[in-house]
């Protein structure tokens, strides 16, 4: 500490363990950011078969939540699909190959950008049907409870998805059965062009938690530590058998709903959106905080960023050189082999 403005590190980030956590938070946020920036470049170069939904601006929310879980915990999410498995610890190469529709993709090229899944890190799949994976996470929580495995299920959904009936059904079932599920709302203020105000009859999604007998908190989604703390509390509660929770992170979608989607009528002020990169960028905010509190230096953080950049570059190269799936893959995996045959 060299001047009076520097703060002590927050308790979570103190000591060697704290530094390791800080590193991992930053590493995963950078992975999301740089992976998606590479995605933009690939999209611009016409290398992506279809549109992509980016989590840029929302990195603190997805990373803070995922780092509160273990690799063996379960997770589901939605069409804005890249950030979740990345934050949960999935390898970037197989994710990138998936975006290019390659055989080495995490889903063998059959899922694509909106439907990433990496079961090896507990990522049970993202849903292109908004809201549709919410009961899936709930069911994973049920399996953990029945098997007594101590696992927890993390369920990502958006402010738009919050209006879907399956959220209600799932939260009620989880509430009644005390399932180990953390419902995590990334409230980025919009469902495509519809504002959260127009789609939700309450200001905060977390206000609905009381209606299911579970705790609900709203946190600053740009503050990875705040998200981590709220998520950790919810995960601990779930793991202890006390039941589900709802965590809402108020966050910002820096880019358009999707790359490849032109929205004819403006629905938000582009000047304001542009200013977010300077004012509420979760990576910049965390970077400055780490430096100010002496947890990591700017040089260390720069080196970390470079490491991730190289990792992303490798992922892109891997994806590019990977082959497309063989034609017959179109018809496999419709069914699993049967146990009982004639």
């Amino acid at each position, binding site marked *: 500490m060299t001047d009076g403005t520097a703060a002590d590190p927050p308790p979570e980030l103190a000591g060697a363990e704290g530094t390791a956590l800080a590193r991992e938070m930053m590493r995963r946020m950078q992975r999301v950011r740089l992976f998606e920036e590479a995605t933009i470049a690939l999209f611009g170069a016409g290398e992506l078969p279809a549109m992509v939904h980016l989590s840029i601006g929302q990195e603190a929310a997805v990373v803070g939540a995922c780092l509160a879980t273990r690799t063996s915990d379960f997770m589901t999410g939605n069409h804005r699909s890249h950030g979740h498995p990345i934050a949960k610890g999935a390898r970037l190469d197989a994710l990138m190959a998936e975006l290019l529709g390659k055989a080495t993709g995490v*889903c063998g090229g059959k899922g694509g950008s909106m439907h990433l899944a990496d079961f090896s890190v507990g990522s049970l799949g993202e849903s292109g049907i908004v809201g549709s994976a919410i009961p899936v996470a709930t*069911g994973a929580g049920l399996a953990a409870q029945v098997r007594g495995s101590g696992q927890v299920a993390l369920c990502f959904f958006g402010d738009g998805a919050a209006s879907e009936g399956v959220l209600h059904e799932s939260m009620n079932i989880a509430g009644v059965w005390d399932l180990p599920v953390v419902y995590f709302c990334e409230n980025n203020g919009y469902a495509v062009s519809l504002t959260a105000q127009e789609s939700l009859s309450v200001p905060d999604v977390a206000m609905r938690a009381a209606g299911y007998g579970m705790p609900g908190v709203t946190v600053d989604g740009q503050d990875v530590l705040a998200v981590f703390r709220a998520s950790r509390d919810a995960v601990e509660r779930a793991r202890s058998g006390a039941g589900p929770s709802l965590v809402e992170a108020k966050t910002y979608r820096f880019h358009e709903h999707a790359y490849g989607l032109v929205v004819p009528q403006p629905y938000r002020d582009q000047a304001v959106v542009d200013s977010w990169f300077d004012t509420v960028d979760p990576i910049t905010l965390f970077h400055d905080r780490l430096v100010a509190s002496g947890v990591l230096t700017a040089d260390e953080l720069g080196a970390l960023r470079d490491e991730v950049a190289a990792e992303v570059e490798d992922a892109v190269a891997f994806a590019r050189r990977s082959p497309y799936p063989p034609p017959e893959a179109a018809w496999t995996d419709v069914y699993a082999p049967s146990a*009982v045959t004639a």
Partner: protein
Amino acid sequence: MSAPPARNPTRARQLGFLQAINRAQHEEMTRDGSVVLMGQDLRANVFGAAAGALDAFGPARVRDLPLAEAGSVGVAAGAAMAGLRPIVDLTVASFVFGAMDQFVSQLAKARYMFGGQATLPVVVRAALYYQGGTAGHHADRPYPMFMNVPGLKIIVPSTAPDLLGLLKSAIRDDNPVLCFEDANLWGRKGRGPAIPDDVEHLVPLGSAAIRRPGTDVTIVGIGLGSYLALEAAEELAAEGVSAEVIDPRTLVPMDWPTILGSVGRTGRCVVVDPANRTCSAASEIAARVVEDCFGALRGPVARVTTDDTHVPFSPALEKQIYPTQAKVVAAVRRALA
């Protein structure tokens, strides 16, 4: 919907429909600790197939569900992906519609879309509760809608031994299986081959049963339709017409070799299907028969289905709309003409 007598091993050879379900569930839950049973009013055993389950397997594995069809099926999908083998009793087939997105977008698609990472051993049971005065909201026979969705298997057992053996195979299958139970058969006792007492009585999915051999016409009958087909065949036998009766038992995967082989021999085909006519299982069978057996076909393929109307409450109206023995006989005559 009254309770069946408690399962009684000494009566296994005359097993009723509900007891067959109970026995299949009981045996498979005993065999495999990852099988769980979720449904409505299981503890109270309102539908009659859950007797003793809660006592035998406890509240962690036998759960009464709140009313939430999408949630129920989706929770089963997630539980399956995370290692359980859920059986979901949705009770009445008219209640499946609220869960359609979970059937299509999760149960049917997850394995494929995630490149084979997901395995979804889920059985969803629902009764075809028609022909009993329950009117339009309880009497659907919606299996054809699901036949249009790849990734799902579908069984419609028509005898208690088949129900036992198919349901056990379904529970062991690593794919989502929908079991539609024709409630008109609840009262009937087992028929067909005697059921072995051991717990390995399995009927593989995708194998049809030839209920009666014949040479002049093939009658394919689904659910109660297989009985109407048999009764019609007997009536026709008196007139010298020899009808072969096939019960597909599984609709997906369909046992095409058995059906097409039969039509190849008889050259005539009638399909009896309790579903609504348009885009029915009967339509699919007729389409496949004309596509693959045209050379052998000597007459039109006739469908005997429920009319394309809703189920009226009034008993004066309801009975008219379903397949009957008389309609099957008339259809065979058309096919032979």
